[in-house]
């Protein structure tokens, strides 16, 4: 029963992957209106030569904020799990 369910879900997922590979845009020619705007205007708007850094810290700062929160949560969790208990 369990193997049948596993095979069924695996085949559905692999069919989805292959279908997604077939209908996606051709490799090397992505749709790029937003990125063209960012590449053209990043230097005048943020002053940074590195466009990736400009995107990470300026255009999409909220993503970086959430990522910092996740890193903080993970560090807190690891330190909490491995803290040494005091011997009584």
């Amino acid at each position, binding site marked *: 029963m369990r193997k049948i369910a596993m095979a069924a879900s695996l085949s559905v997922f692999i069919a989805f992957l292959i279908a*997604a590979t077939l209908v996606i845009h051709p*490799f090397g020619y*992505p749709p*790029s209106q937003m*990125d063209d705007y*960012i590449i053209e205007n990043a230097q005048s708007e943020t002053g940074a*030569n590195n466009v990736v850094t400009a*995107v990470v810290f300026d255009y999409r700062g909220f993503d970086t904020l959430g990522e910092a929160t996740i890193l903080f*949560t993970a560090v807190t969790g690891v330190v909490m799990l491995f803290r040494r208990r005091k011997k009584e």
Partner: protein
Amino acid sequence: MMVGIPFNVPFLAVAALIGIAFYIILSQRNLIKLVMGLGIMASGVNLFLVTLGYREGGVAPIYTHAPIERMVLPVPQALTLTSIVIAVATLALMLSMVVHIYRHTGSIDSEESRTMKG
């Protein structure tokens, strides 16, 4: 320049990576192998994001000493940067949880670790 590659071979590689990771997550019972499967899936997602933003013959989107004006898309690269750090953080948390499960139950089998112990 990658002129000779036919259309969607990099996307097929992404599909293969994510399919392998999904098979591992479904079939394995060892917790360490499950974590390894999740790591492979994270690598597949990173490869997908980088592949999504590649432009034919483009250079990295950095204006310092850039040779030509044609650049790959910067937003997927920024998302990949975020994704890598998140993958590291979650892998560390999962591995420490596996260590604790092993200390608590004496086994890293996912079936045996489900039984409750008073």
